[in-house]
């Protein structure tokens, strides 16, 4: 997965994406003509002030929500051509998700939660890969425990592992560290970074925190539903400066 060829392919893309809420005078454009590519094997962060459309963008690319106009491609497939079942299978097999909170099914054990997408598809997945993922999570003997018996950080790590389990083309994470303390947050971000570097995954992450954003290869800045800036190989200081200059 680390070959240079894959590195240049596009895992997901939008072109002229528009998401409109309401109509007429009161219309809100959560996304206002956004075109962006997410390259395979890259860790992208999306930043912007509250209400700028970060979550909306992510939900639309991931097939959780529909665009008003424009198109979204995942792995070369136009999501608007898929029906509910095909969309579900797409999410199950080619997309991974990490949410801010409540990522896990309370009745299933940590390991079952990690395997959930595979179990839903009645597949066993690649055993070596799963083992590698589980080892990387580092839960050790707590794999058989229910989510309620795990700490918030452990729960988020399980969520990341779940997102990785199917070897998806792309993983979306919406403020994955928003609910944990900074040490645990760093732990999770390091883990995600390793997934990109060592396992060759593609990750798109929404965050408010410059330090978190600095873990990414590339940052996209949104404001009022538009892309207003982009930064490669960021550092926390650079990000902070840019945020100041963007006036948010």
């Amino acid at each position, binding site marked *: 997965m680390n070959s240079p060829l894959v590195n240049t392919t596009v895992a997901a893309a939008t072109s002229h994406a528009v998401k409109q809420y309401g109509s007429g005078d009161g219309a809100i454009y959560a996304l206002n003509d956004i075109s962006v590519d997410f390259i395979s094997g890259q860790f992208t962060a999306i930043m912007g002030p509250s209400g700028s459309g970060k979550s909306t963008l992510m*939900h639309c690319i991931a097939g*959780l*929500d529909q665009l008003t106009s424009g198109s979204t491609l995942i792995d070369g497939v136009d999501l608007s051509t898929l029906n*509910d*079942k095909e969309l*579900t*299978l797409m*999410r*199950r*097999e080619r997309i*991974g*998700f990490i*949410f801010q*909170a*409540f*990522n*896990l*099914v*309370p*009745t*299933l054990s940590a390991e*079952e939660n990690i395997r*959930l*997408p595979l*179990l*839903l*598809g*009645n597949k066993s997945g690649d055993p070596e890969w799963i083992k590698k993922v589980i080892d990387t999570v580092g839960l050790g003997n707590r794999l058989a425990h229910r989510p309620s018996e795990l700490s918030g950080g452990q729960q988020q790590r399980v969520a990341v592992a*779940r997102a990785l389990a199917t070897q998806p083309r792309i993983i979306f994470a919406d403020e994955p560290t928003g609910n944990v303390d900074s040490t645990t947050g760093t732990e999770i971000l390091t883990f995600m970074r390793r997934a990109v570097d060592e396992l060759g995954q593609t990750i798109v992450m929404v965050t408010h925190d410059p330090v978190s954003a600095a873990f990414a290869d590339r940052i996209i800045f949104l404001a009022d539903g538009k892309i207003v800036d982009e930064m490669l190989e960021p550092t926390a200081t650079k990000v902070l400066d840019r945020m100041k200059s963007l006036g948010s």
Partner: protein
Amino acid sequence: MFRIALKGVLARKARLFLTSIAVVLGTAFLSGTYIFSDTLTTTFDQLFADIYKNTDGYVRSSKVIDAGFGQEERQLIPISTIDLVRKIPGVSGAAGNIQAFARIIGKDGKPLGKDGIGPPTFGSSISNYKGELWKISKGVLPTKPDELAMDDVNAKKAKFQVGDSVKVVAAGGSRMFKLVGIARHGDVRSPGGATFALFDINTASEFLVKSGFIDSVLLQSDGTLSDEELAVKITAALPTDLDIETLTGAQITQETQDGVGQRLSFFATLLSVFSFIALGVGCFVIYNVFSITAAQRQRENALFRAIGASKRQITQAMLIEAIAVGIIGSVTGLFAGVLLAQGLSGVLRVTGIDLPPGSLVFAQHTVVTVLIVGMVVTVISAIMPALRAGKVPPLAAMRSTALDTAGSIRRRVMIAAAFAASGFVVLLAVIRGADNVLLGIAILLVFIAVLIAGPAVARPVSLFIGRPAARLRGITGAMARQNAARNPKRTSRTAAPVLIGVALVMAVTVLASTIRAEITDIFSKQFTGDFTINADDRFFGGFNPSLADDINALPGVQRASGFGVSIANVSLSGKSKSKFVTVIDPQTIDGIFDIGLIAISPKALTKEGIFISQKAADKNSLILGSTIAVELSDGSEHDLIVQGIYVRDQLVGGYTVSRQLFEGTVVSRFDAAIFVLKKDGVKDSDIRTSLTGVINKYGTGKLLSKSEYIKKQASQVNQLLGLIYGLLFLSVIIAIVGIIITLLLSVHERQREIGLMRAVGMTKSQVRTTVRWESVITSLLGAVMGILLGLGLGWVVIFSLRDQGIKRFTVPTTGTFVILILSFIIGVIAAAYPAHRATKVDLLAALAMT
């Protein structure tokens, strides 16, 4: 707080609606039962008031034998009484009256009216007496021995016209008559759908009862005396040796109404017992819904507590909601009862009982009872959850999913064990000989034990039952299994209505299959003939005894023996008691029907003798040769010598006499069945043909082979079983609704989880599967526990019948299997709507919730 509570109620209309449904179902049946029985009573009261509208006096015999169960046999009076009454000053007109069994045979050779259930078939008298209720609408009054009139409704139905020949079967045998008139009964064409063959009084007397005798005399006053004075005067004027009594029109109306009222009240009681069962089952649903919503509102209640609401205020708010639910539910249930009552009338109509038109009776006591019962039941069901809600600590609010904890499992099991143990102790006491009434207490204790233990066992049992689902359905099945087990209290409360319903169904099934086996056993032991001919399943009417004689004369028949039942007053230990006595033909019964006579042939029974059962002999210290005074229903008295004692009394009862005893009496006697033994070597088909020939000549009677006959006897239990199943059906519906409501609430509460799973790749059909299996597991949980409890209950009931001669215990394997399958189906059906709702969960909204 009151305003806040009320606002809370109105803000959650869906929840209010769901909770109310449980109340509606429970109260609707109660209301429907009341409305229906009131309507029936009023209808019949009106009917009899109409029948005796023109009657000022009613003359009948004062001699009556009451056999209990509303059955009585009154002595006939001589036909000459009519003329005697007519001549009494103050009487302006009188007519003889007869109402007896008669069955009209249709043009297709089939008797009119339905077998078994359905309205009766009557033969009656008609005259030009001015108080006569029957009015000829076409043709003329029948006046000759070969003429008859018929009620309008059935004449139309059977396509009979004036001038047709009509065959009728009655006590006098079967006979052809000429249809000379069509009659209407007062304003209605035929009362209650019964069929009527109408004759002039002499023909009616000879053909329907006994030549020269009638049931009673109806009379009208000329107005010079009050009805009461006239009645006294008539009684005084008639010869005392006639033993007659005279009732006023009002008295006979009242008496008839009371008689029917009594029979109806049995029916009404039966209905209301089952409606209270349904209501009890409904209680669980209401209790469950309140518990779940209370748990779901924990956070909201904790917030109220944090900002200063007291425990009492929280509890009050919950109770206010319960009262709102109670009012809405009972009022709706009250009116839903009207629909149900209409449905019940519809069912009656299907069986052929046509109620005269009239609107449903919506009495005040119905309104009061239903509203009060509905309210009380709702508030009682809500008290526990309301108290629990008040106990919510102000800061224990940040739980993400509602969990009503199962409390201490050990304590629960211990309390349940204590109840169960005391139940078994009581049971043991009964087995050791204590009163059967205690069995009811034992059952109640065990039921309570099971319900208390429910939450403790719900988790392991659900996990066990859900195992195949997990294996079959992979992750969705496994998730369903976990969902069913995650909230044991909720699951067991949801399963409780199923449990109660199944336990009752199971117990009834056990009882029925045991009785069926018992009947089969008794009949195959006692009936040793080849064929039987049965009168239809009514308790009155039957074959003219000459049918048995005719069959005996057939060439292929070795012997045929008639069986009848009569009512008589039997003097036992100095007291006269009315008893059913079996009437046999001692000369033919041998080798056909074995009543287990001890060391004597049935032929020993003579006109002057009686056979009694061992039990009757022991109870009344009678021995062979003792004399018993017996008064037959015509008032004739006979001193009978005990000529034999028998042991098989299950079918013939305690007292058996010879048909010869009735020779020379005025008792109209029928055979209820005729048993036939064919000659050796005669083919079944040949004898069937010749028997059918004779039966057809008589018009009625069902020919059955021995095995058919035994099967039919055993299947009579099925009718009762069907009725009880039907009545329990409402409890089952409530159980289903309970599952639906619980699942809807669970789905609502797990929105986020469902959204998450949809996001990571669960298809809609997988969502549905998960909900469906959870429902199936819950339903099966109730069914499995209910079956176990029902088996126990069935055993207890059968045990309590041990004195009635039922000694076996048959486990209905097919029945158990069917119940399991049905519970499975119930689970699937109940899940349909909640599963649909689960697929409609808005992904983004679910994920946005925190």
